[in-house]
Every structure is written in C-alpha cells, then in structure tokens.
C-alpha cells in the first residue's frame, strides 16, 4: 500500500519506510492496539456475551427439554400466542400504513411535512413506559376517551386493544423510515417512465414502486417484528400484565421470575432469544446497505 501511494506523495514514502525500520516505534504502536482490543473484548464480554452465556448455562442446568416442556401449559402458551398475534398485526398494519406514510413523506410536498417527518421518530426517543402512561390518560378509566368508549362497551386499557396500540406506537418508525430511504434513493424516473408507457397510477405502484421498495420493506418489517416481540414497558403499563388476559411473552417472563417459576421463565427467554437470532439473520440478508445497489 505505501508503495502505491509513494510516487504521488514522496513524503508518505519517507514515513512508510521509516516506520518498519525502527523496532522501537513498532513496539510503541503495538501496545495501544493490544490495549484497545482488550478493552473492546472486555466490554463485549461483560454486556453481551456474559448474559447470553449465563442464560445458556442456566438452561443447561435446568435441561432445555424441561424448560421448553414448561412452556406447554395454557398460561405460557396464551402469552406466546398473544405476542404472536401482536407481531402479526404490527406487521400487517405497519406494512400497509408504513409504505403509504413513506410515500406521503417522500413524494409529496405539503405544509407541515417536516413536522410530520420528525414526529415519525418520536417512538425511537421516547421511553415506552411513559408512552404507556400517556395511553392510560387517554384510554384509561376517567381518561379523555372514556365518554366515547364506555357507552360502546369498549375496553382499551388493560385489554388487548391497549397492547396493540402500544405495540403499534413503538414500531411506527421502522417501515416508514426504511421504505422512505429507498424511495428517496430511487427517485421518480422509473415511475414516470411507467406512466408514459400507459400504466395507471395504481399499476405503476404495484408493478414499479412496490417491487423496488421490497428490500426496504422487508428490512423494516423485520425490525418491526423484533421490536414488537421484545416490547416490555409500554405493554406492561397499558396492559397491566394480567395473567391469561394481557400478559405477553416478555411480561410473562417477568411475572414468572417474580414467582420463582424458573423453568418456564428460562424456556420463554430461550425461545425469544432464538427468535431474535432468526430475525437477526433475516436482517443481515435484507440490510439495504449491504446489498449491492443494482440498476442504473
């Protein structure tokens, strides 16, 4: 490398040749590097690897079979199913509204667009617990919407609709953002070409826009699934984690540990961890920044 740079910049050659020639300098540069590696390694071991290893070890002690078998009871299965339904609904709703939202934000210019654009990021910065609390003020007993909800017999807080609202809130940005990035990069040329070739707006969307944003959509949906599955604070506050009614996989683990039902807690945790790993693999494959950018 230094050789290829050298002809254009002679001063680089001087430095490049001097460095390996001096053993003192080499030793001096190796020490900080080792230190850096050690620091990074220790940090990762502490915050990332140790907890996962501990989880695995505890699972081993309990026996994976025992832990998973503990899941095969009505309560944990119900919590899991509830989480599954929440993830599915979050995927469908975010899939549709997220793409529409991205198109509105990227393709249209209107008053208040910038405000709307920054509002999309609010769920990323706001604590989910606070959001749960705010939802209670709107949907809870004596909340703003009580006059509407009560006569209709609808329960939102401490019921499934509350869980769904909380999940939708925390997953709002992912599809909008990921699809938005792709739309921006794409530009409008292809869509306009489709129009001049006789395609209606609807056909242009289905045949051109949607296939082109599919990668971003997949990535956004994967992030959505991971977030929906892992959410704890918001669903705990809005739902109350009532056993058999509003507990999800995560709040179930919390309750199980409180009650010292270790087998089922670790079984559930292992299941969530495995699912996260799968999503991680999916993310890596779908990541638009890693894919070769094709096209023109």
């Amino acid at each position, binding site marked *: 490398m230094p050789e290829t740079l050298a002809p254009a910049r002679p001063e680089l050659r001087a430095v490049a040749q001097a460095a390996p020639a001096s053993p003192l300098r080499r030793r001096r540069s190796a020490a900080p590097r080792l230190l850096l590696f050690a620091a990074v390694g220790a940090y990762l071991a502490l915050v990332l690897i140790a907890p996962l290893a501990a989880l695995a070890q505890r699972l081993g002690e309990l026996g994976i079979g025992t832990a998973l078998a503990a899941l095969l009871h009505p309560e944990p299965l119900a919590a899991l199913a509830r989480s599954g339904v929440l993830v599915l609904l979050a995927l469908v709703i975010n899939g549709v509204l997220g793409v529409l939202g991205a198109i509105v934000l990227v393709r249209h210019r209107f008053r208040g667009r910038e405000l709307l654009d920054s509002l999309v990021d609010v769920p990323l910065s706001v604590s989910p617990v606070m959001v749960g609390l705010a939802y209670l003020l709107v949907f809870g007993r004596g909340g703003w919407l009580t006059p509407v909800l009560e006569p209709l017999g609808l329960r939102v807080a401490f019921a499934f609709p509350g869980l769904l609202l909380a999940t939708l809130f925390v997953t709002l940005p992912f599809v909008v953002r990921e699809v938005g990035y792709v739309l921006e990069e794409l530009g409008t040329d292809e869509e306009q070409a*489709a129009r*001049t*070739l006789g395609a209606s707006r609807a056909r242009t969307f289905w045949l051109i826009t949607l296939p082109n944003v599919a990668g971003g959509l997949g990535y956004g949906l994967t992030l959505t699934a991971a977030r929906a599955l892992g959410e704890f604070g918001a669903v705990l506050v809005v739902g109350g984690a009532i056993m058999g009614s509003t507990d999800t996989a995560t709040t179930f683990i919390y309750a199980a540990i409180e009650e010292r039902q270790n087998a089922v807690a670790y079984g559930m945790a292992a299941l969530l961890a495995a699912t996260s790993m799968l999503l991680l693999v999916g993310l890596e494959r779908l990541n638009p920044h890693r894919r070769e950018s094709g*096209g023109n």
Partner: protein
Amino acid sequence: MGIRVEHLTKRFGAFTALDDVGFEVNAGELVALLGPSGGGKSTILRIIAGLDQPDSGAVYLDGERVDSVPANQREVGFVFQHYALFRHMTVAQNVEFGLHVQKVPKAERRERVAELLQLVGLAGLEQRRPAQLSGGQRQRVALARALAPRPRLLLLDEPFAAVDAKVREELRDWVRRLHEQVHLTSVFVTHDQEEAFALADRVVIVREGCVEQVGTPLEIMDRPCSEFVARFIGEANVYAASVAAGAARVGSVSIALSGAPAAGPARVVVRSYDLKLWADADGPVRISRMVPLGDRVRVEGLIDGEHPVVAYFPRRSSLLHGLEPGCRAAIEVTLARAYPCSNGTGATHVERS
C-alpha cells in the same frame, strides 16, 4: 402527428422556468430543443408528455388539446436522460412493459419485443438486467421500450448526454436512421449544437425559458436572429462597434455587414469561419497563437493590439502560408451581422459555444 404548444408558462416558486413558449412540430419531423442547461428545455418536453403541468398555455397533439389528458393516455414515448430502466426487470420485460399494461395479447407482445430488440441490435440480451448493460445498451433498451407500444410521438430528454463520446456518435447516427425508417414525430432536448444540427430537421433555440429562434439548421447558422443565437452557434468574435452606412469599424478594420443594420451602437458578431487572415507585414492583426487541431488550425490574434480575433482554417489552407505567432496579418471579414445594443457599451470579447 403534429405538436403545437402555445403560451406555455411554468414557475417553480420564484423561478420562471418557461415564459410564453410556443412552437410547432410538423408530423414526421425530428426537432431539437437546443439551448444552455437550465433554460427550460426539459420542462417543455415534460409538459408535452404530461409529466408536468404548465401554469398556463396549451399543448395540442394533432390539433387536439391534451392539457387534461393524463400522461398514461397521451401515447407519447419518452426516453429519459438517465434511461430510467426498470431495474428489477429484464431487458425483455422492460421493453414489454408498455404492451403489458396496455393489455396487448401475449403472443403479439412476444413478437413485438423480439422485433424491437432486433431493431435496436440487442437480440440475445433479453434476459439481462439493466445493471448488466453498458450505457449505450441501456439507452437502446430505453428507446426500444419507448417505441414498443407504437407511440404517436417520441420525446427524448438529453438522450446522448450520459454515454461517452464514441458511443454517442454511433447512437446519434442510429437514431437518425431510425427516424428515416419510422418517420415518427420526434422532439429531443440537447445542449450540444453539433448534435442538434446533425440530427434535427428543425431546431428550436431555447434560452432562459423563452424561444429565441426556430428554423432549419442552415437558417439558424446563416441567419441567427439575435446576438445570443449568433454566439451560441459555433465560436464567434463579438465586438462592440458603431454601425454607419451598413458597416462597422473595429479598430482600423472596416467590416461590411449583411442585412440592413440600423445605424447606432451595436454588437458585431463575426463567426470564426467567416473571416480570412493572411501574412502581411502591414496588416492590422498580430498573430498571438496557432493551435493545430488535427484537420484544422485555430488562429488567435489581436486587431490593433486590443481586439481579440479567432479564426479556423483547414490544415492545408494556403492562407496559413507564412502565418506564425508574432507575425502581422491582414484581415478580411466575409460575413458579419450586427445586433443593436440597448446599453450601447460592452467590452469586446470572444465567446465560445
């Protein structure tokens, strides 16, 4: 299929992109919109295609006003500057797209796609993706795609700007031949005057959102209607001078003007190929530089030590005999035009196209 645009005006915020633009394109004609970048040429094209809406004015296709006809119903083929190929589709799918959305039966579609890929010389590349093609190939796919649904007219936005020089010339010849075969009414946008003159039956000069002149390449070359056009087309010497009795003086040189120029302050435009210089020890011009350019030589000099002059001569021209930097030369202007000056002043200078 004739085109007529009338009084087109288009503003983007405070910027006026088009200001009362009007011109006509006859059926079967190949017309160039020529002008400096940012002058509104592409906007005109996009309005004809229905991709942009004018603030006022009208577009007629075959005498029928189409302002309210959406882009997908105008039957206009459009070739985009950066091709705009559908990147998730193969070459064949790209070309087929227009036929597909217009519900042409499958067998007929296949046939038409094969026919067009043959026409543009891309048979055999049906299954390639746009990313696997060279710039010239992409451009030809874009053309085939635009032609496939048999559009009533073809619009090309800087069609050759994004390919390199050699491919550009090939494509240009090829488009000209294609036009001679198909006789599809076509309008293309370019900022390259050579390209406009090489291809177009007629040229529309667009400047800062206005139509400056419309005419055949020869008309525009020989009778530029304004100083701008005169200077834009080829390299020209421009002098601030006073016109009297059909002539102007630049230093000690008297220049006969064509047409019947009004007396008074004017800018005199002399094309770099409309003058002669030859070695003459008593001549008013001192030669400062001679640049060999293959088949031509560019000669630069100063009239009376202050007015620059540029001329081109064929490499073997007898005029070059004895001419060399530092020597003096006589000058004869064979064709010059004067354009009245509003402000009356202005330094003499040489303008490149």
